[in-house]
């Protein structure tokens, strides 16, 4: 069979379509046409042969690895064809006269909003529908190509459509970069909290928490773990709509055989099982982080601030939850980072002793304590948490909303002004109104 393929492959003047060398591939190869031709000849080798010599580290392989990098700046996008053949065959966009999705020219960059681990985010405006957008510009890694975080984020977000998940509008391919076009959100929870120091209005905490859990319940039902929950990754709109963002570390959890890396989730929001080195975790991972954020919204302070090492973080947690034993947490002593010398006399405290504002809100402490369980299996699921008594004062229609409908479509649901804003407006003699600074 292999021989047969080889004969066919080697037939001169093969009339295959030039799919792999359309567009800017040509501009790269223009500089060394001779070499391209010889390489093409080399490619016509028997595949069997190739597989046999896989282990022999061929010097030509090294040469090829240092192939010249293309410098063309021409933007390339989903909507443009990679293949000129396609264009010639009359491939047309249905809205030819209008601005297409997927083209860099359809969006205007306005200002830089922030810089992430693998991307820079700009505020932009869509020239298609005049809406504000957030443009996440991902630069290509010369060695590794498209960052795996970008690949996972985009492929997961393609399948997630929910009012509490950030919406991916469009993807633009250019030569050097990849740009994800997201809906624009006015701020994030970290910034919202820093603009309203001293803790948020309890009513707003309830609305934010309900939306956070609603988003988590949705992604967990879709078998996706966020794995990087923190206030910076939770976006907030003018109205108070909350959306989960930054799925760069997220992954589909439908494949269990893979053990996950334990190096997920910012230290402050990382659950004790992950801190102890457990690599088999599930949706409970996100629940711990949501619990931390819940209390942080009341207190206006991170729960375990200033912690820099895993062991410091664990000790802070034990100070509240008590040191786990095999009785309270089966299997804990077998985890890699478990330290048998932990002082076992640390007894669990009630959360409101540690974080006083929890006690002022009925049922808030109970929900928080169900989310902040050391033993992962004991933690409440997002779906269960949504029907907790803490949320019973919210309109019952919120439980029946379709996935893509926002809480704020229900009449009577709205944010209340934060105490800090009221005080500020009293001092200044005018209302500061909406939070004006973005991101």
């Amino acid at each position, binding site marked *: 069979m292999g021989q047969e*393929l080889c004969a*066919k*492959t080697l037939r001169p003047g*093969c009339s*295959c379509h*030039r*799919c*792999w060398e359309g567009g800017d*591939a040509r501009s790269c190869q223009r500089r060394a046409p001779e070499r391209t031709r010889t390489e*093409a000849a*080399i*490619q016509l080798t028997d*595949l069997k042969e*190739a*597989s046999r*010599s896989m*282990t*022999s580290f*061929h010097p030509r*392989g*090294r040469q*090829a*690895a240092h*192939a010249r990098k293309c410098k063309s700046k021409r933007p390339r996008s989903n909507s443009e064809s*990679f293949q000129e053949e396609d264009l010639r065959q009359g491939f047309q966009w249905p809205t030819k006269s209008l601005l297409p999705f997927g083209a860099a020219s359809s969006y205007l960059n306005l200002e830089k909003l922030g810089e992430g681990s693998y991307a820079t985010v700009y505020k932009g405006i869509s020239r298609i529908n005049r809406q504000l957008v957030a443009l996440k510009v991902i630069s*290509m890694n010369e*060695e590794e*190509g*498209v960052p*795996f975080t970008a*690949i*996972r984020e*985009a*492929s*997961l977000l*393609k399948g997630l459509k929910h009012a509490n998940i950030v919406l991916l509008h469009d*993807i633009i*391919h250019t030569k050097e970069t990849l740009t994800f076009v997201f809906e624009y959100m006015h701020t994030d929870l970290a910034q919202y909290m820093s603009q309203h120091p001293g803790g948020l209005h309890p009513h707003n905490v309830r609305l934010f928490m309900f939306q956070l859990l609603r988003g988590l319940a949705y992604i*967990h039902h*879709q*078998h996706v773990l966020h794995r990087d929950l923190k206030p910076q990754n939770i976006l907030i709109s003018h109205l108070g709509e909350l959306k989960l963002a930054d799925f760069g570390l997220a992954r*589909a959890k*439908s*494949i*269990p*055989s*893979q053990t996950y890396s334990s190096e997920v989730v910012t230290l402050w929001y990382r659950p004790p099982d992950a801190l102890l080195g457990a690599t*088999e*975790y*599930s949706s*409970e991972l996100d629940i711990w982080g949501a619990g931390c954020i819940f209390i942080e919204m009341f207190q206006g302070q991170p729960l375990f601030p200033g912690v820099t090492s895993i062991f410091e973080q664990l000790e802070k947690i034990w100070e509240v939850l008590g040191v786990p034993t095999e009785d309270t947490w089966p299997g804990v002593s077998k985890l890699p980072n478990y330290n048998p010398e932990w002082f076992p006399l640390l007894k669990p405290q009630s959360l409101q002793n540690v974080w006083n504002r929890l006690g002022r809100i009925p049922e808030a402490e109970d929900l928080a304590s169900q989310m902040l369980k050391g033993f992962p*299996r004991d933690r409440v*699921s997002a779906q*269960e948490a*949504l*029907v*907790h008594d803490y949320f*019973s004062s919210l309109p*019952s229609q919120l*439980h029946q909303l379709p996935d893509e409908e926002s809480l704020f479509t229900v009449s009577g649901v709205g944010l209340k002004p934060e105490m800090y804003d009221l005080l500020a407006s009293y001092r200044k003699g005018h209302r500061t109104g909406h939070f004006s600074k973005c991101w």
Partner: protein
Amino acid sequence: PNPPLQSPAAALGPEPASAPVPDNVPAGTSASPGPPERPPGRCAPPGLEEALGALGLQGEREYARDIFAEVMVCPALPQMALPSTVTPEMRALVVDWLVQVHVRVPGLAGDTLYLAVHLLDSYLRCSRVRLHRLQLLGMACLFVACKMEECVLPEPASLCLLGAGSFSQAELLRAERRILSRLDFRLHHPGPLLCLELLAALAGSNPQVMLLAAYFLELSLLEVETAGWEPSRCAAAALSLARRVLHVAGSGLEPALYRYGHRGTPDLPSWSLSVLSQRVRNNC
């Protein structure tokens, strides 16, 4: 509190795949109304919780049914002819080579291979490829699959070496971009391995049956026909065949395989046997 998944009687109903079986609302302490019922069509066979436990997935109690529904009803690629430049034999040759590459790169998960072949088939369904670029396409699909699945990525340079210099690193990265663009980042695919593990756990299959079934499943990668099958159907066929070969007494699993694997697949054994005869003859 683990909500009971579902009574066995309900799961064994005549039309389980379409019978609306709402999730059990967890026993909340609240007086407020329960969450909206999940869409109908989700059903779980008896023993699913134990099967998930056997796979180390006890943590997924709340979402067990969803996971099962997703992996079992994952849609197949449309049945389409390969591009005129690629014959089934050539596709098989590249897939066979990918299987070997997958073995040579240390530490790659099984799912990565199935995802890579799925990406290859998806690409071939929406785009043409020059024949001498088929090998590059296959490797780029494996590279993208690694980025989706693996914690530790193989070096692009070492992948190029495995290609014996038939493509450069720059070409590999360009091909990666092209795949992402052509497939519009729709890369998620549960693959048949989890289906196989779940079905085997449900049937209480021993490791020997499982191993043989996994082997058959890998052989099925070479078939252009099975590329257009639901992953659950491939898994059910592989398991069914392995049980026949090893003369495992039927435990009433077959009806369940048909039902949860794919409704109305009367040709499972015939496909299995034809694959077996062809492939085993070729390989032995």
